[in-house]
Structures are given as C-alpha cells and as structure tokens.
C-alpha cells in the first residue's frame, strides 16, 4: 500500500515524468511494432544493457551539474582521460602472459582507483574554476574539456591504447547474476546518486542552491563547497563511464564518444532536468536514456545509419520539448 502511494506520489509530483514514461512506452511499442522479430529478441535488450550504462552515467553526471544551474561539457574528456590513464598504467606494470593472475587483478583494482581518482581530480578543477573563480560553467568546462582531451592526446600520441587486461574487459563485457556487469554498475551508481540527491545534505543543498542561490547565501549554505562537490561527483561518474567504455571496447582513445556529449545533454533535459537549476531526478534521466536507447536500437536494427539515428535524436528532443512547452502553456 505504501509502495503504491509512493509510486503515485512519484508520478504525480512531476507531470513531465508521467509523460516521459508514456513516451518511453510508446517508443518501445513503435519500435517493437516496426521490427518485432529483431527488436523483441532478448539479445537486443542484452546489447542495449551493455551500451546504455556509459551514456546513462554521463547523462547523470550532466544532470548533477545542471542542478545548480551549471553544465559540464568536459565529461567525455574526463571519461577518455580516465580510461587512457588506466591503460597507460597497465602497459607500464603488466607484462602479458608473465605477470601472475593475482597481481593482474590487483593492478586492475589499482587501475580502477586511478581512473576514479582522475575523475575526482578533474571534477575538482572544474569545481574550483566554477565555484571559486566564478567562471561561467559553459566556458570553464569547455576549456577543461580541451585540457583533458589534450592531455589524453599527449599520453597516447594519437592512436588508441589497446590491450587492457581481461579483468578490465570484464567490467565492460562481463555478466554477473545473469545481468551485464556495466548495467549492474550503472544501477548501483544510479541508486547511490538518487540516494545522495534526496537523502544527504549534499543533494538537498544542491537543489536549494539551484533554486535560489541568493537565499541559499542567507540561509548559511556553503554554496561554494557544495558546488565544488557536485562537479567532483560529476567527474567521478564520468570516469566510471570511461572505465566501462574502455572495458567494453578494450581500447581508450582521446576522441572517443564525442557524440555522447551532445546526447547526454539532451537526455538530461529530456529527463526533466531544468538547465537553470533546482530540478532533476536520476529516475527521469534513466528513463530518458532508456527511451533514446530503444529509439536508436530500433532504428539501427532497421539498418538506419548511425547518422540518421543522430538526426532522429535531435528531432525527438525538439519534439518533446515543444510538446512540454505546449502543455505547460495551456495549463
């Protein structure tokens, strides 16, 4: 009974969420209808569950930045840099077929640590520029994106870093309890972030700061510190996305996933995040990713090129936004 109430509150609280769920179902039905044999195969959903997490994490990362009215355009750069740093580390310490298995596992754990630390450090830089020096988020993260990508380029010299250890590949390609490992990671991260946003001081602070930064000052909120933390959190998520991405493709390159950035921003907004701050949920963003993944998967199965899928994403976003605006106006 309580669950039903909670669920009802959830949907009622945000009309747009309800609309989003409806749209997702419609998209699913449409894709299934257009291509039932291929779309509805378990294999299709399985492959979605492998690709969805990277994008999902990046979208959540951007949502977090948007909560305070900012944005993080460097998430893809952070993801790539994290993967590349881990890869470089592996190449230094692991000699294929010689290093004992147990040691490799330890190194992989260390690699994860390095990647995540990269994300935190990158987020720290972003947060410092934005919260302390008061640089506009768009410009600050544009600049740091160049720096991170640039550093990645310096480290690789251009070509991709390949040859990650098998354990690393497991993160991106493995299965655990019948589900894709990256998907489980995403779920864990999403639940954690949702928890942080609704049940911890950091999350509540971010919502308040995003709603009214001036009133936040008068209420004694530590604005700068909270904003700093939020960008570090975004950086952490981005680096996790980078781990998964390089694990899945067994390669890390300085210019991977450039289309992800645009998509992540669109997904965050589609998922009900207000780019001016104060509103955004993990649930909304996750559903939006799902909707868009169904959309692209469906079209890809129909042999539409990736480019055309981009076109459809853009059109979809603008359509939904126009729909929202129309509905909000007549209210």
């Amino acid at each position, binding site marked *: 009974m309580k669950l039903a109430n909670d669920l009802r509150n959830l949907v009622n609280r945000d009309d747009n969420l309800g609309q989003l769920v409806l749209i997702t179902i419609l998209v699913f039905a449409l894709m299934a209808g257009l291509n039932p044999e291929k779309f509805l195969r378990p294999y299709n959903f399985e492959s979605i569950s492998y690709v969805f997490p990277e994008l999902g994490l990046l979208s959540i990362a951007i949502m977090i930045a948007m909560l305070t009215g900012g944005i993080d355009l460097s998430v893809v750069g952070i993801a790539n840099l994290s993967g590349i740093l881990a890869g470089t580390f592996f190449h230094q310490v692991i000699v294929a077929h010689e290093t004992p298995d147990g040691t490799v596992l330890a190194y992989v754990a260390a690699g994860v640590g390095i990647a995540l630390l990269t994300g935190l450090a990158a987020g720290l830089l972003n947060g410092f520029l934005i919260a302390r020096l008061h640089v506009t988020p768009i410009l600050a993260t544009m600049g740091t994106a160049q720096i991170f990508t640039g550093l990645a380029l310096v480290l690789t010299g251009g070509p991709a870093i390949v040859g990650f250890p098998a354990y690393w590949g497991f993160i991106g390609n493995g299965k655990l309890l019948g589900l894709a490992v990256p998907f489980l990671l995403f779920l864990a991260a999403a639940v954690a972030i949702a928890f942080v946003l*609704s*049940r*911890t*001081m*950091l999350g*509540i*602070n971010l*919502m*308040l700061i995003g*709603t*009214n930064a*001036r*009133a*936040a*000052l*008068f*209420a*004694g*909120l*530590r604005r700068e510190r909270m904003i700093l933390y939020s960008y570090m959190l975004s950086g952490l998520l981005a680096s996790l996305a980078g781990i998964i991405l390089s694990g899945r493709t067994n390669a890390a390159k300085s210019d991977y996933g450039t289309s992800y950035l645009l998509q992540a921003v669109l997904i965050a907004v589609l998922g009900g995040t207000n780019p001016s701050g*104060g*509103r955004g949920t993990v649930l909304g963003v996750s559903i939006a990713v799902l909707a868009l993944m169904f959309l692209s998967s469906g079209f890809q199965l129909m042999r539409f090129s990736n480019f055309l899928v981009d076109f459809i994403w853009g059109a979809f976003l603008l359509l939904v936004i126009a729909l929202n605006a129309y509905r909000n106006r007549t209210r």
Partner: protein
Amino acid sequence: MSREQNGAAGAPAVPRTRGRPDPVSDILIELRDIEKRFVGVRALDQVSLAIRRGQIHCLAGENGSGKSTIIKIMSGVYGPDAGQILVDGVPVARLDPIAAIRHGIEVIYQDFSLFGNLTVAENLALGHELREKRRLVDWRAVRTLARRAIDRLGVEIDLAADLETLPTSGKQLVAIARALMSDPRLLIMDEPTTALTRREVETLFRVVREIQRQGIAVLFVSHKMREMLEISEWLTVIRNGRKVAEGETGRFDEASITRHMTGQDLSGEPYRWRPAADGKPPRLDVRGLVLPGDTGGTDFKLEAGEIVGLAGLLGSGRTELALALFGMVPGHGGQVLIDGVPVRLSTVQEAIARGIAYVPEDRLTEGLFLAQSIERNILVAAYDRVTRGLMLDRARARALAAETVAAMQIATPSLDKPVGQLSGGNAQRVVIGRWLMTDAKVLILNGPTVGVDVGSKAEIHRKLRELAQTRGLAVLMISDDLPELAQNCNRILLMHRGRLVGEVAGGEASEASVSDMLRRLS
C-alpha cells in the same frame, strides 16, 4: 529656469506648500467606483480617486493593497470590471497602454525598464526612435534628443556613460527624463524612493518640483511614508482594495498613514520587558562596530527577552548593520559579544553557529526557495540537526518541520507543498520559523511584516513576543512601520548615517517621538 510647457493647457504652477484643493475643472484624471477582480479575488472595491493638474499626489498602500492594480488601470494595462475612468472630465470608453500615453499618462516602474548595457543617450532616445519607426540610427540626433531630455530635468548626467555605471538614483533620473519625452501630463512613479540615499532623494524631489513647475502632475505610489509626507500635497490611502483615507498631506503624519495602510489597531498591550535579575551578560553586546568605509562606531546592547526596534530614514545603514552582524561583511571593525563571549562574524555560517538569526528584507529573493517544499524551507539552516553523518534522518526531519509549523501556526495541509503557494503571512512565518532550530540567541528581522495581511501581522507580532519571552531571544526589529515598532518594542533605537543617534522607550508615546525625531533628521 522655467521651461515651456508642451501640451499642458497652461495651468498655473501649483504652490509647493499644501494649499486649497483646486476647482473641479482642474481634474486631470478621475477613477470613479472602480472594481477589479482577479480569479475571484477582489483587487479593487469601489475605488474613487482624482488627480488634479500639476498636483503631486501620493497613493499609499502596502504590498497587495491594490495600488499596483490602480496604476495598471490608469495606464491602460488592465481594464476595470466596473466603474468609470474620466480624462479631462470626459469618460473614456477603452483605455489601453497606447491610448493612455496619448492621453499623456506615463508610468515609471520600479525596475525602470532601462538597458544597463546601453548608454544614457541611447536609453533616452530609443523610445522615440521606435515611435518614429526609423530603420537607421542617427547618433547625432540621438545625442541632441538626449541632451534636451536631460536638460529638461535640470540635472547633470554623462550621456556617454553606460547606464549600469550610474547609481540607482541616476538611473531613475534617466527613466524620468525618458518618460518626459512624450510630453506627459501625468507621471506615475512606482516606489520611487526605494534604494535611494537621503541626498539622492533630495535630488529626486528637486526634479519632481521642476516637473510640477512644467505643469505635469505626479502620482507617487509608495509605502515609504517619510518622503511622501515631504513631497506630496494630497494623499490617498488604499487598504485591501478600498480607499480608507484621503486628504491634504498636512493633515497626516507618518504614524496615522501607517495605521490607515495596515489597519492595525493599537488596542493591544504594548510590549513590556523587565530585566531578569540574574546578572547574566547581555545576549548581544556590540562595541564600536565599524563598517568598511564608515568612520565612528556603533554601540548597543540587547538583553534576553528584549524586542528592540531600529528606526531610521532610508539609507541610514540599518540593513548594513544587520548584515554585518549576520556575517556578510567580513571587513567590519569593532567587537561583538554574544552572552559575554567575543565572537568573530566573518561568515554567515559562523554567525549562525554563534546564534545569530536574520530574517531578510525581501523574502521572495532572499528568504524563500519558492519551488521547494515547506519542509525544506524550514529546515534549510538546520539540516545538520537532522542528519546523522551524511544521511538525512527523514522521520526526524519531518517531525522537526511539523513542530515548527505548529509552533509558528503556519496554515498548510501538507509539508510537501511548494512554499511559493503560501500566502505572504504564512511564508514569512516559514522564514522566521526556520531559526527556531538553530539555537538562535539573537533574532534580527528586517521589515518583518512587509507584504503581510493585517491578521497575519498581529499573529507574527504575538509570536515574536512569545519567542522573546519564552526562549529568551534578543530581538532586533528593523522597520519603517512606526506603529509596529511602538506597539511591539520595549525600546526603539534611531539610526542615522550609520550611527545610533537616539533612543526612545517603547509604547504609544514613542510613535510621536520617533516620528518627530525622524522629521528633524531629514
């Protein structure tokens, strides 16, 4: 340096001092029995008022009293649901903004509708250029137009300066100059003296008198009484959508106007306070507080249970004092002691931790998170009390918020409602109530009942007295509402140009004394 009158029918200059009402034919615009409803709420109820040619008329009322609606009806933005508008004695069937301007009615709103990133000259000339439907900009013509407009006011402003470099008073003068360019017969000014220093107010009044000399009537709409008393000849007071008083300004004083505006009756007991004989140090002891850029310091003490008023003219430094005590002015000099212990107040967090609470002037932009829930708005300053480590204790949070709602008697069916949906009085209670949980020792309120309906005002006052007495809070109440101060403070301090210049004991008599002292200061 008298100017030619353009448009106005050669009306004689109206003397500055309060004189006899002019004959009926001198009425420029008249509202008769105006009614206006918005979604079931009656904004205006049988309101009648008349503005005479060349008259400086003040329309007094609190926020939400209906004065903004009157302005909008006079300027054609709204149409009345009932009643008549007469211009020059002739009823006007439909008044829309363009027709209003053609009749010679111009409005200057509080935000001036000017462009900070453009020069003064361009701001002045823009409206004219657009009206002429030009395509190209002739900068020489712009400068000439601008010079002429500024000269008409008799003030000096650098035409080439970007508007945003001007102080508020300068921007206001530019707004006035721009309004004059369409040769109005009535200039309506909405809350013109907000954010002006004393000297700037004097300049404004000089300009207003110059405008009057040119035969233009001025309607001041305001709730700041001191200056209105000084400049206007006729006063109309609006409360709850009804006209409750009108007459020659000379017949009113600050206190009587405020009482008309708020409808407060003073039948209740004035606040009394007796010092506790426990030898404890004062809750707040301010010694030689100096704000950056000021010379000389401020000294005063507040004991537990006191409600001390702080009165003063605009620009007297009261808000700055409050902000300094709240940790927003890290560069201040002097010493502040709380319960006898010297404290450093260089950040807001420090001030709150030391027990200082501040209810800001403008609750909409400084106090409330409109889209967030009532619970969040209440808990915002005290989340550390409901978190264990990193995690929020939801049950405890809810319980504390509910307690506060009960304690402050906030009327709401649910704690999850966005606070923006609450009435002014309830919202203000949320802002005050949030400090109940921070172990506050000193509560500073800046305009505690501005924009709050009368019933809520009384309740908030009761609440404040209760908080002072039962929790031993020392309350500092900054207000321009003299009756409010007289009724609720056991003593009233007077501030002028950043210094404390007087003190009066609370109670009924204080209204007159304070009013007097303020008058002598201005």
